[in-house]
Structures are given as structure tokens and as C-alpha cells.
């Protein structure tokens, strides 16, 4: 059974890692519903 299918996903990306929209794009075909996306930046 798919880990993400039917799940609501909150994406917490980081500027110096992998950004939120990039992760969200990757999840498009997983059956998950992305309900929150953020890209945090720590300086």
C-alpha cells in the first residue's frame, strides 16, 4: 500500500536544502494531497 496515497501532506522545504515547491512537484503523482507548502530560510 502506498505510503502517501490518500494522505494530506505538509511540505516543509528549506532554501539551503530542497525547496517546498520542488517537493510538491515530485508528489504530484503519488496520490497525496499537498495541503501546505513552505520553504524556510535560516540565516
Amino acid at each position, binding site marked *: 500500500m502506498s505510503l*502517501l496515497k490518500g494522505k*494530506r501532506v*505538509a511540505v*516543509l522545504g528549506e532554501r539551503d536544502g530542497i525547496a517546498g515547491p520542488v517537493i510538491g512537484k*515530485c*508528489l504530484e503523482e503519488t496520490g497525496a494531497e499537498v*495541503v501546505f507548502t513552505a520553504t524556510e530560510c*535560516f540565516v
Partner: protein
Amino acid sequence: MDLQSQDTIKRLAEQYGRENVVVILGSPDPESAEIAAETVVIGDPTYAGPLAEAQLGLAVYHVLENPIKEQIPEEMWEDQIGVMADVLDADGIASAVGAIRDQA
């Protein structure tokens, strides 16, 4: 973790039910991944935000972990993440997040 993000995640867990929410991280290193994972599982370790002492116990993964990577089409993975998977300490990050997940 940003306080606004904490508040949103708390609200989402309440709205959809903890068992239906998954958090996926894009942290750049094991230390920051561990803190972010801990925040959504055990509570904000800095006691600064809405998730301080809020043991949500949410499922949390980093996008570089195999259970997530395996669900992403290979071409999409290479296009979107590819290089970052080589640059970041994927094993260290997976270990850190997995250790927090085991505490849920």
C-alpha cells in the same frame, strides 16, 4: 521551525486527523532535519512555538528517504531533485529522521 508553520501543522492535524497527515521535509542536514522531525512528532524542542509540548506524533519523512523516493517517478526525481541528492548527506538525514520516527 517557523512559528507560523508550526501553527499551520497543528491546525492541519486537528482538521484532518493525525493519522491522515504526513510531513515531508527538505532540510539540508541531519541536525536541522532532526529538529524539524522532532517538532512534529514530540513537540518543539525550543519550546518557542505552538508545538511546544504538543505531541502530535505525525508521520514525518525527508524527501531523500527511500520510502518517499520510491514513490516518485525516476525522471521526475532526476529533474527536480537529482543533484541535491548527491550534495546532501542523505544517509545522515535519513538516520536522524528515522530515529525520531521510531519515537512516535
